[in-house]
């Protein structure tokens, strides 16, 4: 009886949590399909016209493509910098760890707006031609998003015992590049995917740096949304469409990460290794 009550309690709690997260998104979704929504729980009139208008908007499509491309570019840049750096720090020079950790703390300690002004000042002094270009956004986003990848990759390398793997690979004649490619990266994919998703999401939804460093010269989805809010009252439904699309993009990436790591997750839980082995046999 006590067990049943506990089980019901757990399910009820789970349901509450799901509702807490789902209700705002459901409300936005309904709003994006509403022709008129007054004082009822559900819209008075349903319509798909806002979705049609949103996808027909050339400016929105351009902002969306720009945002996705930038997020991918930031992800690639961060992976190219962070993975070799963490590998090097773990196998060759543990003393740089303190510097790396301090750098990784900065985006959490300083508000993005302060970082943006810092980048603006610094770039204005040493490379003013970069101001307003996508390059400054790329480097700025890479700088603020890298800690997410750093912590995930560092944890994954620790869990994979990269130092030992590295030594074993060295005695097999592998160069550092070969070790990274054939041994390290395949063994940290879970951390890489989780951190990579956070980097992508950070750049995808970032507003302050883009606004301060490039403004209208690099209109991303966030700036476009702000413009919708500022300039018109009749296109808030379009903003709802945009919000749903952004949510779906990030949700799809999350599902992808979970799918890619489904076996690795099972290996992390007690008994999971044996279960995975049994399944593979």
């Amino acid at each position, binding site marked *: 009886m006590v067990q049943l009550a506990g089980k019901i309690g757990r399910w009820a709690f789970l349901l509450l949590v799901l509702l807490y997260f789902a209700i705002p998104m459901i409300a936005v979704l309904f709003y994006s399909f509403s022709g008129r929504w007054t004082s009822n729980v559900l819209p008075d009139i349903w319509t798909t016209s806002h979705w049609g208008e949103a996808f027909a908007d050339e400016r929105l499509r351009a902002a969306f493509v720009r945002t996705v491309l930038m997020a991918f570019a930031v992800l690639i840049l961060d992976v190219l910098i962070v993975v070799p750096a963490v590998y090097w720090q773990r196998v060759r020079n543990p003393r740089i760890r303190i510097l790396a950790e301090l750098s990784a703390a900065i985006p959490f300690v300083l508000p993005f707006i302060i970082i943006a002004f810092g980048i603006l000042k610094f770039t204005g002094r040493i490379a003013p031609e970069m101001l307003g270009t996508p390059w400054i956004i790329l480097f700025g986003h890479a700088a603020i998003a890298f800690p997410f990848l750093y912590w995930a990759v560092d944890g994954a390398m620790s869990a*994979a*015992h990269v130092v*030992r*793997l590295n*030594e*074993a*690979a*060295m*005695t*097999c*004649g*592998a*160069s550092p590049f*070969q070790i990274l490619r*054939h*041994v390290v990266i*395949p*063994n940290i994919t879970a951390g890489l995917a989780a951190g990579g998703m956070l980097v992508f999401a950070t750049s995808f939804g970032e507003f302050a740096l883009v606004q301060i460093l490039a403004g209208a010269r690099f209109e991303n989805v966030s700036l476009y949304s702000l413009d919708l809010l500022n300039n018109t009252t009749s296109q808030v439904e379009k903003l709802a469409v945009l919000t749903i699309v952004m949510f779906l993009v990030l949700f799809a990436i999350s599902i992808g990460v979970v799918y890619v790591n489904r076996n690795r997750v099972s*290996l992390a839980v007690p008994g999971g*290794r044996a279960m*995975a*082995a049994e399944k*593979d*046999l």
Partner: protein
Amino acid sequence: MSSVVLSHISKHYGAVKALDDVSLSIADGELVALLGPSGCGKTTLLRSIAGLEKPDGGVVQIGGTDMTHVPARKRPIGMVFQSYVLFPNMTIRDNVGFPLKMRGDSKQAIRARADELLELMGLAQQGDRYPNQVSGGQQQRAALARALAANPSVLLLDEPLSALDALVRTRLRDEIRRIQQLVKITAVYVTHDQGEAMAIADRVAVMNAGKIEQLAAPAQIYDDPSTRFAAGFVGNRNILELRADGGMARLGKAFAVQAPAGSSTVAAFFRPEDVVVSMTGEDQQAMVENKMFQGLLTRLYLVVEADGTTTRIYADLPSRQAEQFTQGSTVNVRVAAADVRVFPAD
């Protein structure tokens, strides 16, 4: 010709001297065991040969070539680690073929060599499994196959059996020796288990505090330890601290041996199987305090009252012979002077 020559190798970790001017020559096809307690420098020495540690001083030569500053990946070595360290993302076959892949061999050549080694190690059925799908013993055999894949000049084994249970350990120890002799490869084997070192090695280097205390064949180390540390570390031995009177150290009438010159106190070592126990005689009397059956042998714990002091020693006798000695009985004991090793006590 010496396959591995280490000359005056030294290594410090801060103030700790891990290796202190170590020199060692290993002949082609020879298996040398580095034996010693934790922290004696045996693994550091092995890692210096592998290129995983950079010595502060000295020269490492492999096959007559100076390898001191050559990175690990370019040394003609294969290494087996204590914790296997197979690559979890690769199958057993891919693990074995990895050194050949790094060398740029063709896929067919890699497959053929990997299959040949898997056959040799008795892993032909496990080739397509991942490391977490096979047992510890099988993982270590796969690691051995990987280490041999590229036909290295030297095989380095860093406590390869210490993570395995006793039964697998003995079987794999014999297998390692069989394969080492079959492929005629020079090998360096690190262990803290003296039984393992004695069973597997052509020569054993007993290490202590960053130095090689004695380098000799297992039987010689066992029968004739050259230092106090080697005497104490290798084999089960009685260790007694005795006073030297008139240049002689005595345990009553059990034995009298020449003490090292200038020593007032000596440490005397003798093996339990060298203690002769009889019911009658004119030798030193002792009381059987306890008796422990160990299968083929029985260990007698004896209390010796001599020269006003009480001393406890133990003797190993064939179990049939030991039957006549009952607990509490008085017996005669003696040890031949030639079987007692004495060293200055300090």
